[in-house]
């Protein structure tokens, strides 16, 4: 109730913005501390090649985190992204095996990702089933399909043009997955932070009723968010398949947890209405640095998971709002 009587409205100064960011996102401090720790204690951590490796590892999570950010800001969740990416990897491998042109097959898979998102979105909005349940079901369906379609056998990809385009090639000194990350992040940033659609996404998550009462087609906004999430999951599946030059039914399993953690660490509220794309990317990079740093320190993958989990819980606890 501290309403000050002042006729002129202050504009925010840069300093106020920075200070407010740090107050709202204390995770950035943990992020800085952990990175500093690795730079000091992990051998050869602060090198360009390390940075490149981390960014490449992070690409998958970053791309899916962009789509997930839309869904979570809408106040929903998408648990199906990990298995959607596995399934997409299987489909692309089978399409390429069936000699579908390299230029066409990936687009078909991305369209399929949109379709998966559409189904998720329709079930959530029209049948009013909580997204947690809908996408949990979808997770199970897609991972089951991925295993069934070839009877759990991986499908090799012999199309080098495909693997180059999505993973192996470098353009202007940057490897392909980093370019794809940049493309998706820019698209996501544009859509969420600059367009009318983006403002409506925030409004839908901030107060669904008020958004509806402001003439916003809230169902359509949510469905679009799920479709975008499905498309980013499909793209991640393509990258996964290109990386291992094979469609493998369990490549993406469990990725949804890293993706959701990245988005939440990045300051997006699980309750909706608050968050942004750069935060999610920083969150994804943080998870990448954590994994890579622990690896360089020589810790076993099992104990890495424990430490990672602990730090994620700590970060999210600090970000609570």
């Amino acid at each position, binding site marked *: *109730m*501290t*309403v*000050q*009587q*002042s006729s002129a*409205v*202050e*504009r*925010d100064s840069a300093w106020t913005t920075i200070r407010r960011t740090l107050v709202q996102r204390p995770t950035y401090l943990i992020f800085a501390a952990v990175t500093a720790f690795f730079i000091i204690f992990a051998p050869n951590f602060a090198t360009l090649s390390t940075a490149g490796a981390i960014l490449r590892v992070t690409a998958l999570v970053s791309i899916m985190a962009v789509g997930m950010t839309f869904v979570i800001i809408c106040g929903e969740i998408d648990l199906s992204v990990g298995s959607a990416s596995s399934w997409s990897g299987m489909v692309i491998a089978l399409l390429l095996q069936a000699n579908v042109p390299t230029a066409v097959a990936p687009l078909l898979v991305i369209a399929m990702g949109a379709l998966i998102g559409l189904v998720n979105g329709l079930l959530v909005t029209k049948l009013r089933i909580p997204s947690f349940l809908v996408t949990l079901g979808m997770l199970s369906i897609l991972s089951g399909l991925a295993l069934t379609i070839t009877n759990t056998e991986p499908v090799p990809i012999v199309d080098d043009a495909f693997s180059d385009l999505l993973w192996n090639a470098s353009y202007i000194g940057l490897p392909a997955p980093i370019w794809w990350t940049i493309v998706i992040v820019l698209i996501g940033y*544009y859509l969420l932070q*600059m*367009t*009318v*659609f*983006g*403002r*409506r996404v*925030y*409004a839908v998550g*901030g*107060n669904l*009723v*008020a*958004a*509806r*009462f*402001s*003439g*916003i*087609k809230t169902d359509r906004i949510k469905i679009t968010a799920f479709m975008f999430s499905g498309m980013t999951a499909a793209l991640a599946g393509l990258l996964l398949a290109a990386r291992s030059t094979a469609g493998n039914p369990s490549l993406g399993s469990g990725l949804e947890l890293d993706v959701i953690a990245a988005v939440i660490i990045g300051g997006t509220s699980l309750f909706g*209405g*608050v968050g942004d794309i750069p935060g999610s990317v920083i969150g994804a990079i943080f998870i990448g640095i954590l994994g890579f740093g622990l690896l360089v320190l020589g810790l076993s993958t099992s104990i890495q998971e424990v430490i990672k989990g602990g730090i994620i819980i700590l970060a999210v606890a600090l970000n609570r709002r």
Partner: protein
Amino acid sequence: MAADSPSTLSDKPVDGAARPLVSMRGISKSFGENRVLRDVDFEVSAGEVHALLGENGAGKSTLMKILMGVYRPDAGTVTLDGEDIGGTSVLDHLSHGIAMIFQELSLLPNLTVGDNILLGREPRRTGWRIDKRSMRRDAQTVIDRYGFPLRAGQLVRDLGFAQRQMVEVLKAVSRGARVLIMDEPTSSLSLREEEKLFAIIDELKARGMGIVYISHRMAEIFRLANRMSIVKDGQVIGPLDPAATSIRKVSELMSKSKPAVVDTAVIEVAAKPASAGVATALEVRGLKTARKLDDLSFTIAQGEIVGIAGLVGSGRSTLAKALFGLIPDARGRVTVGGQPLKLGHPDAAIAAGIAFVPEDRRLEGLVLGHSLSSNVALASLDKLLHRIGVPVVSDRKIADLFEDYHQKLGIVARRPSQLASELSGGNQQKVVFAKWLATKPRLLILDEPTNGVDVNAKADMRAIMRGAADSGVGVLLISSELDELTASADRILTLVDGRITRELFEAKDEAELRATLQADLAAMKKERLA
């Protein structure tokens, strides 16, 4: 056990206001730099209603939270029956008999009346089992003692608002409450329910309960209160004797030093021009919904304010929502500015030029966790683009839009990026108004626009409304405060049980309007029964 313990209330009237039941002396409280209360005295005697008034943000709720034990005062004492309870917790205060009935009732709708009354004090049988039979019996005993029309086995979900309030009261008295704080108890009640509540308050008074009554509605305060105190800028004026003062005097005392009434002339809404030769803002023919509305027909001219008078449940809000496209099964012919409107689509309604300030600004009007500027821009994002055709929103234009209405409507705010949740009720409502005026409407639908805002902000809302009408907008005003309708509307339609029964051109006074409504409702019931 509720059946035998609650009789801390004596049935004999306590003699006079000689000795206060609760007494707060020299209370001060600061939050950081902000001194909310300064050396405040406040007391309640047994068997009296002590009304507490004050603008939003004046410190009323802080004072009550100290009385409830939510906050600890920085200085001062709180004594109950001479015993110091200053430094204790909410639970202690409850057990000492101080209870509060909140604006948003705190009942569990999925449980029965009896469950709610005895919540946390259920009679037990061996093995932690709840003794359902004796619970229902105990609860019914409490209900019968006050003669409320409730049954212990009813689900709270199925009760009306007034009945839920009764359950709240019973919950408090059965815990042995001696002081009851009621925060805006009539804000959701119909006229008839109000009368019931007032009867309950009289009954509680007679049994020696001390009641703190917080309200913005002067008429009921003057009807109920034995004493009244005004909180203003962290200090208390009074107590005053209602018989020795007047509504006008009290409003003056409440208002801040400078009455910040919005200048009607500034609010040029510049309504979209209607089709040539059309002077009606809205024409409704045969509007029906499955549940509530029964064949409504009326028109609103440009620049006219039409009031809808109706009791709770008459379909007032349904009418507003149906016109705005929020009721999918609404049928009928509606034209806005001469153009036919497709019902059932809020975006179509906005495109046609309808603006809708909803009843509940926190739930329906605002995204509380977002900035003021993005709230103001929400309904007109399509018009705030960098360049026409490219769907990129211009932050510059949003900031300018906010600045524009910030000055026109006198919104008290620090920055455009301030969160909507940080403003007082009146300023929040101005933000909702700004959002809709920014769409340049032809028809402005206002559902309870002054609900829960203080006296000065009410005057501002009326000025904004009149300003909009003067610039050619048709206004549909729905209000349960009948004096507001008689004061503001050019014409009043009475809505009784989903039908328009009368059209009143002369501004009647509040009492007359109220009587008319109740007579019509009774007639309607008889007709339906026959």
